C-alpha cells in the first residue's frame, strides 16, 4: 500500500524559524484561533437566544487546521474554504461583526441575508463563498489556479474539502485536471473522521485520503490537524511549491469533529474514548501550552490577547445586532449581474 508522506511535527523554536514565523506571527496565529473559537462559541449562544435562523454549524477542533493553512497563504492567494473553516475567514481578515451579522441573516452579513452560516466569503480577501453541495468548490479552486497559470501570475489557489466529500466526483475531476496541468493549487482535506454520522471506514477504502494524491500524479501529506504549526509548515511548503511551478499537493489534516454535525446532533455515534483523546489534543490548548513552554507567551501577554479578543467579539456582537434584516422587497434583486460589475480592476 502506498503511504503518503507523514509530516513530522514542528517541535522546537528552531523548527519554527525554519517555517518562517517570527514571534508576532506566532501570537497572531494564537489570536486567530481564539477569535475563531470565540465566534463559534458566541454563535451557539446566539442560536440558543433564537437569533440564528435555520441551523448552526461549528468547526470546533479544526481551528488549528484552518488557521494554519490560511496563515501560510499570501495576500494574493485565494481559497474556497468549507464548513469547518471559520479560521480561514478570520485569518484572511473577515471582520467578526460581519460574521455574526451573517449568522443572523442581517444585511451586513457577507451574504447580506441571502445565504447563512459559513456559506459566505469576501472575494476581496481572496475567498470564494462555498455552496452546500460538497465539494463543488474544488473544481472552482482549480479554475482559479488555471487563471493564474494562464496569466503567469505567481499565485496559488487553495481548495478545501471534508473527508466525506472526497467521495464525490467533483473531488476527482478537480484533482485530475489539476494533476494533468500541474496547476498551482493545494487541496486541503479537513479529515475530522466523520461525515455527519458516517465514519471514515464507510467513506473510503484506502488507509489515508492523502494516499490518493499519487493517483493524480502529485504528493500527498498526512498531517496532525490539531497541531497548528505543523499544519502551517506543510501548507507553506505546499503553497510555495505550487507557486514555483511544482504542481498541486494534497494535505490531509486529521482532527476530530468535536461537536455534532450541527446544533441538533448530539453525535451519539462518536465513541467517547475518541472524543476524550481529542479533547486532550485540543488545538488551542496544545498551542497555548507550547507558546508558554517556548517562552513566546507569558501570563501577561496571554491575558492581553484574551482580553483583546473578548472585547473585539463583544463589540462585534453589538454591531452585528444593530445591522437590520434585509427588506422583503429586495428579494428579487441581484439574480443577474450587471455589466458595470465587471468594470473593476479585478475583472480588467
Amino acid at each position, binding site marked *: 500500500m502506498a503511504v503518503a508522506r507523514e509530516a513530522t511535527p514542528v517541535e522546537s523554536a528552531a523548527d519554527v524559524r525554519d517555517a518562517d514565523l517570527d514571534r508576532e506571527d506566532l501570537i497572531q496565529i494564537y489570536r486567530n484561533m481564539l477569535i475563531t473559537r470565540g465566534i463559534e462559541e458566541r454563535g451557539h449562544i446566539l442560536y440558543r437566544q433564537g437569533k440564528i*435562523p*435555520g*441551523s448552526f454549524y461549528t468547526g470546533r477542533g479544526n481551528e488549528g487546521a484552518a488557521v494554519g493553512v490560511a496563515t501560510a497563504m499570501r495576500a494574493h492567494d485565494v481559497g474556497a474554504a468549507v464548513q469547518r473553516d471559520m479560521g480561514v475567514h478570520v485569518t484572511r481578515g473577515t471582520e467578526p461583526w460581519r460574521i455574526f451579522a451573517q449568522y443572523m*441573516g*442581517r444585511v451586513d452579513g457577507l*451574504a447580506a*441575508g*441571502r*445565504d*447563512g*452560516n459559513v*456559506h459566505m466569503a469576501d472575494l476581496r480577501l481572496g475567498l470564494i463563498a462555498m*455552496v*452546500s*453541495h*460538497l465539494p463543488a468548490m474544488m473544481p472552482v479552486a482549480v479554475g482559479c489556479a488555471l487563471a493564474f497559470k494562464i496569466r503567469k501570475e505567481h499565485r496559488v489557489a487553495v481548495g478545501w474539502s471534508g473527508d*466525506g*466529500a472526497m*467521495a*464525490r*466526483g467533483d473531488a476527482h475531476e478537480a484533482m485530475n485536471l489539476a494533476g494533468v496541468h500541474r496547476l498551482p493549487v493545494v487541496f486541503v482535506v479537513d479529515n475530522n473522521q466523520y*461525515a*455527519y*454520522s*458516517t465514519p471514515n471506514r*464507510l*467513506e*473510503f477504502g484506502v488507509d489515508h485520503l492523502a494516499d490518493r494524491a499519487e493517483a493524480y500524479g502529485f504528493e500527498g501529506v498526512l498531517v496532525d490537524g490539531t497541531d497548528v504549526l505543523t499544519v502551517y509548515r506543510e501548507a507553506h511548503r505546499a503553497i510555495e511549491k505550487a507557486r514555483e511551478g511544482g504542481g498541486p499537493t494534497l494535505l490531509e489534516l486529521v482532527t476530530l469533529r468535536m461537536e455534532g454535525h450541527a446544533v441538533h446532533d448530539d453525535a451519539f*455515534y462518536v465513541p467517547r474514548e475518541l472524543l476524550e483523546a481529542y479533547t486532550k489534543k485540543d488545538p488551542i490548548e496544545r498551542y497555548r501550552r507550547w507558546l508558554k513552554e517556548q517562552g513566546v507567551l507569558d501570563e501577561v501577554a496571554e491575558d492581553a490577547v484574551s482580553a483583546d479578543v473578548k472585547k473585539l467579539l463583544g463589540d462585534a456582537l453589538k454591531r452585528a445586532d444593530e445591522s437590520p*434584516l*434585509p*427588506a*422583503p*422587497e*429586495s*428579494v*428579487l434583486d441581484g*439574480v443577474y449581474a450587471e455589466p458595470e460589475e465587471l468594470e473593476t480592476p479585478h475583472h480588467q
Partner: protein
Amino acid sequence: MATKTYLQAISDGLREEMRRDSRVFLIGEDIGVYGGAFKVTQGFLQEFGDDRVIDAPLSETAIVGGCTGAALMGMRPVCEMQFSDFVSCAFDQLVTVAAKQHYRVGTPVPIVVRLPSGGGFSGGPFHSQNPEGFFAHCPGLKIACPATPADAKGLIVQAIRDPNPVLFFEHKHLYRRIKGEVPDGEHAVEFGKARVHREGSDISIITYGAMVYTAEEAAQAVADRDGTSVEIVDLRTLTPWDKQAVMASVAKTSKVIVLHEDTHTSGFGAEIAATIAEEVFENLDAPVRRLTAPDTPVPFSPPLEKAYLPQVEDVVTAIEELSAY
C-alpha cells in the same frame, strides 16, 4: 385508521414494504446508524441489518447509479438524497441512465429516490429547494409529491411497486407539522389520480405538496369573509398528472389559480396553465393565474424567505383578483 404524522406515514410505508418484499433495500447518507437526517429511517438498521439499510459515502451519483444497477438485477432499491437539493449531483444518472433505459432497450428500472424538499425554516438556497420542475421535463421519470400522511404512505408504497424510476418528494415542512388519518395495513395510492382536497364552485386552485395547506388557509379565509367557494385540487403526482380531474374542476369553476412553491419560469405550473389554456380555453372566464415563488434562489433570512414563498395572503389576493375579473 390511525392518526400519524406525514413523516411517520412515510416511515411506515417503507417499513411495511421492506417486510413484505425482501428485494426492497435502502441506501443513502446517514440513513442507517443515524436513522436519516430527518429520522425517517430510524430503527431500520436494527430491524433490517446493514445489508438492506446501507450508509453510503457522500456520493449521489454512485447512490443513484448503484440503485439502477441493483434494480436491473431484480432488486427494488430506495435511496435517499439527504436534501432534495443534492439531487443535482445525480441529475445525469437519473436523466441519462434511469429515465431512458426502458425506452432504449426495454429494461425496467424500478428505483425510488426519496427527496426531502421545500422551504419555510431558513434552510437557505441549498436546503429549501423544490427541484421537481426540472425532472417533470424528463420523460421516463415519475414524480410524486404527497401532501397528506395518507398519501405519503400510499404513494411511497406505490412508488416502490412501480416498475419505473420514481422521484418521491417529501416536503420537510410537513414532516412533523401535519398529522392525519392513515389507513392501516396495505395502502397504495395510484399515480396520476388527483384528490379534491376541498370542494368549491367559484375558483379552482391546482396545487400539490405543502402549498395545499397554504391554499386551504386562503380558501377558508375567503369563505369565512364573503363566502367565495374555492376548490382545491391536490395533484399528488406530477408525472403522470391528472388532467381529467383538473379539467373537471375548471369546467365547474371557470377560473383557475395554479400554485406551487417551486420557482416560476418553466415550473410545473407553466405546464398546467398551458394545458388548461389549450384544452379548455372556451371554459375559462379569466386567464389562468400562476402563483409561485419568484425566479430567485431561496433566500436564507426570514423576511426574504417569507417574501419568496407564496403566502396565504398572496393566495387570498389572487382569489380576490380572479373573483373580480
